[in-house]
């Protein structure tokens, strides 16, 4: 994780967990990701990533993982999230959950 040079990192987004808030795309100094037409973050310029750590620290949904290209193995807990996403091909379905907390209905 300590490699700060350009082109040495893999950037993975968990599409099921991303709510498309746009924080990563707005503040990434290397403009690595953008929101797609489904409102999900996608990695477009991975080679530009300087592994500054901003997106991992600020994604409110823990949906981005930046790893060095060497030692590329995805840890088991994160792999489970990705595999689950791959099994069900839905795209924007999880967005509904996003608005629930603030829907004005009290859950307390």
């Amino acid at each position, binding site marked *: 994780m300590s490699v700060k040079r350009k082109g040495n990192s893999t950037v993975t987004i968990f599409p099921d967990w991303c*709510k498309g808030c746009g924080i990563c795309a707005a503040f990434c100094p290397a403009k690595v990701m953008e929101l797609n037409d489904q409102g999900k973050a996608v990695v477009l310029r991975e080679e530009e990533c300087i592994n500054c750590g901003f997106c991992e620290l600020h994604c*409110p949904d823990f949906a981005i993982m930046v790893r060095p290209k060497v030692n590329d193995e995805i840890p088991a807990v994160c792999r489970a999230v990705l595999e689950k996403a791959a099994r069900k091909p839905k795209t924007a379905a999880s967005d509904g959950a996003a608005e629930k907390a603030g829907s004005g209905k009290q*859950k307390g």
Partner: protein
Amino acid sequence: MVDMKGTQLIHEYLRHNKKFPHVFCAGCGHGIVLGSLIRAIHGLGLKKDEVCVVAGIGCSGRLAAYVDFNTVHTTHGRALTFATGIKMAKPGMHVIVVMGDGDSMAIGGNHLIHAARRNIGVTALILNNNIYGMTGGQCSPTTPSGSFSMTTPLGQMEQSFDCVELCTAAKANYVARGTVFHVKKLDKMIMEGISNPGFGVVEILTPCHTQYGRKNKYKTPVDMYKMLKKDVIDIERYNKLSEADKAAKTPAGVFVQKDESGLEEKFYEMAARCQGGV
């Protein structure tokens, strides 16, 4: 787990049997606080079982459900009372209280000032989004004068509390203010708040675009993070500004750090004295 970092580390501490993505809206800062809390506890080298997260009710309170420590989801405004009991009974436990601005300073305001006065050794994280997020956006004690909410459609006429000043006046041992944008500093404040004896408060400025931002001048959640980046500055820099310039900025940093023993330490000392007959 020892050398894990970033998102991998956070995923190690999440309860993966809960529903994800979590319940918070897109761009809600509460998720960033959860990440920061996890890094702070990991950074201090605490075991999951040595930590108890006590949450109130509100969107902020839901944070406790997602993380694999001892967790208690209590009632609105009363989290500090549960936490006080836990700390007195188990003084070795690191008790961390998660509350919203409404939770901690409206209904729970009295518990907050008295927890500070008593100096009970718990760490309060106050997730201040200037609004009652969960119940539909009513104004809270920290909704700024002049700003809009569901219950102040023409602008808030009342003054707002300054959480740092309130807790400082109530004699808390550790008082800091951070934001979910300046997150590395926030990690450090939470670590200090936990390791400092007695009552610690970290006020965390965190955006609620759904209930607050939209009704004010912020078009998107990202605009609220830009505001935090621009308007919140370190206390040292803030103190050097002219009075006129100060009005547009909010100071962040550590405001109070004392090492007075916590109530539970004094209690167990006294208990030992009584039992030993000295």
